[in-house]
């Protein structure tokens, strides 16, 4: 008797991922990691990769990831950086404490996280699993549980690389902690599943930057999860810079849980990857908290970039602000899906969400869907999305001053983007990203 196999439901390489996940869960590791891996492998076996039939993935088809076999970074020996200059280009010109992950593996020799003020603990996750088992037991997999979705499950199954950043109560630090994920030519064919845990204790203030960058146009798969815990009165400035190679796959998830009067400010900058998905989720769990989620994506060629945000207003008197801007050229495809849920108890919620996209070519497209679901009756929430082409009057204004057509367009694209970048608090990061944006559009690095 013959049976037909429905490959569309279970792509062939799903079984490869499944086997890899099971092996990872069975391998030896300190308890907090081993527990997460087991939960992840079990969840992935149940969930698999998301399909476009699921509402949250309707516009993003991940079969290119599912049908490619990668080697887990944790299964390989660490590579060596051929030249330190390769790293310097991504350091924002600053000497911030830094954890460097090269082709998915933590590189102690390239990292500098020893000279930190008292009350700021930064260490690789593998070390934290040994030194801080109770902390990890308590928080690892708490804001981003292993069964959230297929990618988070897969990330859990391979838990091992990543960082713990813990800022003690009332400790205020302006110096950012920089987590750098660098892929070189040696990283071709690698998949990495970094998991970062950021804990900001009550009344403390911290700043974390995550960079995902590449020096070679190679294919690899980054599937990262960052868990953020903000205790009462805590503040976190968080910037994620996604400049992966244009052949790479990138799935990045940030999940935060916010206490009373806490403030989470997240900025997502994206120019990289052939196929990428960004999830930024936060739960406002205590009275008087606030969230600011901003982002800028600039896509070209056949790039596909999907940005999802979700703000859950559980407690009353909280505010949320969102501004995502996109510039789409070539045949690129952008997706924005922003959800704001206001729970019945969350009275006096003040929410505002905006997504503006500029289409620079006839073939670029955007699917944008701001969503509000409100179950409280005394709230102030607005949302809006615009999709447009370049403003003719502005273009004419520049041309009427003698500025040529090409430069005029570039300046207006930059102007559109600059509006979002200006919301970044860290001056060095802001200037560097502005410069990057400007170079992208004008070929020179100053509007000053």
């Amino acid at each position, binding site marked *: 008797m013959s049976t037909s196999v429905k490959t569309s439901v279970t792509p062939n390489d799903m079984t490869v991922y499944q086997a890899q996940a099971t092996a990872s869960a069975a391998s030896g590791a300190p308890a907090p990691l081993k527990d997460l891996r087991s939960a992840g492998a079990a969840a992935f076996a149940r969930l698999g990769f998301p399909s476009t039939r699921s509402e949250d993935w309707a516009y993003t088809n991940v079969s290119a990831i599912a049908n490619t076999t990668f080697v887990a970074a944790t299964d390989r020996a660490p590579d060596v950086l051929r030249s330190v200059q390769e790293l310097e280009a991504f350091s924002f010109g600053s000497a911030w404490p830094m954890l460097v992950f090269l082709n998915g593996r933590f590189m102690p020799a390239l990292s500098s996280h020893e000279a930190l003020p008292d009350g700021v603990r930064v260490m690789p996750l593998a070390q934290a699993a040994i030194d801080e088992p109770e902390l990890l037991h308590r928080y690892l997999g708490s804001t981003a549980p292993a069964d959230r979705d297929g990618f988070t499950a897969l990330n859990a199954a391979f838990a091992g690389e990543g960082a713990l950043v813990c800022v003690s109560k009332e400790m205020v630090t302006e110096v950012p902690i920089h987590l750098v994920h660098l892929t070189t030519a040696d990283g071709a064919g690698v998949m990495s599943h970094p998991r970062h845990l950021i804990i900001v204790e009550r009344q403390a203030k911290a700043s974390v930057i995550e960079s995902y960058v590449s020096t070679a146009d190679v294919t690899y798969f980054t599937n990262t999860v960052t868990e953020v815990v903000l205790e009462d009165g805590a503040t976190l400035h968080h910037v994620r810079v996604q400049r992966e190679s244009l052949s790479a796959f990138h799935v990045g998830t940030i999940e935060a849980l916010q206490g009373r009067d806490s403030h989470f400010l997240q900025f997502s900058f994206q120019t990289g990857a052939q196929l990428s998905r960004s999830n930024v989720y936060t739960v406002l769990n205590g009275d008087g908290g606030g969230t600011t989620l901003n982002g800028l994506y600039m896509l070209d060629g056949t790039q596909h970039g999907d940005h999802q945000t979700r703000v859950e207003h559980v407690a009353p008197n909280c505010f949320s602000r969102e501004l995502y801007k996109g510039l789409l050229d070539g045949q690129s495809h952008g997706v924005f899906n922003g959800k704001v849920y206001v729970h019945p108890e969350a009275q006096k919620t003040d929410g505002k969400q905006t997504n503006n996209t500029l289409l620079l070519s006839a073939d670029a497209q955007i699917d944008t869907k701001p969503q509000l679901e409100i179950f409280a009756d005394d709230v102030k929430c607005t949302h809006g999305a615009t999709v447009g082409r370049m403003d003719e009057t502005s273009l004419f204004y520049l041309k*009427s*001053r003698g500025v040529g*057509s090409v*430069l005029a367009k570039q*300046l207006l694209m930059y102007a*559109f983007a600059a*509006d979002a970048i200006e919301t970044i608090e860290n001056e060095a990061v802001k200037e560097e990203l502005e410069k990057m944006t400007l170079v992208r559009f004008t070929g020179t690095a*100053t509007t000053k």
Partner: protein
Amino acid sequence: MLVIRDLHASVGGTPILNGISLTVNAGEVHAIMGPNGSGKSTLAQVLAGHPAYEVTGGEVWYQGENLLEMAPEARAQQGVFLAFQYPVEIPGVTNAYFLRAAYNEIRRAKGVDEVDPMEFLDLVEEKLKLVDMDVSMMNRSVNMGFSGGEKKRNEILQMAVLEPTLAILDETDSGLDIDALRIVAGGVNALRKPTNATIVVTHYQRLLNYVVPDYVHVLAGGRIVKSGDKSLALELEARGYDWVLEAA
């Protein structure tokens, strides 16, 4: 310098200019007046090359060249300048960068070397005095958060830096208080030379007390219905537009 012959133009299929003829010589100031909707601003925009307006007939010669065949930036590079009624805001691009980019594009078109930021700043500082603007305005985004008066002064600053041969001021006086009007007019007058010309588009005679025209033209229904000297502007101020329109 500028010869307009039987110019017709429309926007979105609606005719706005219905046969305008006008000659402007070097050293002259022409005022274009008229009621709302008469086509004053359209004439200004067409001369600068706004793509929303379609020229449906007639011709425009500027310094012996066919102006209508030139792209807006080419017109600017050849010395045509339009001071906008509603200057555009450009977030993220500083006034200094924008103005230097424009200045250098015009220099490049003339085959002259570009200037670096320091040289340019020296040049601008001189021009800033003309319109009573502080140098700090140069580091702000173009027209962002500027008051109405500051925007108009910024237009005249651009004009001062770019030194046009033909300047067209579109309702530059609208929304200005008397002090700002004096400053703007003072700037315009300081830039007058025997070799350049100015077209002042305005609804009111007020600006013409300061920028004194050699000729005044009244536009109605997309045509020039009456021309005269500066006394015509005073008469319009005293009697309104109706009598001219009836006579036409």
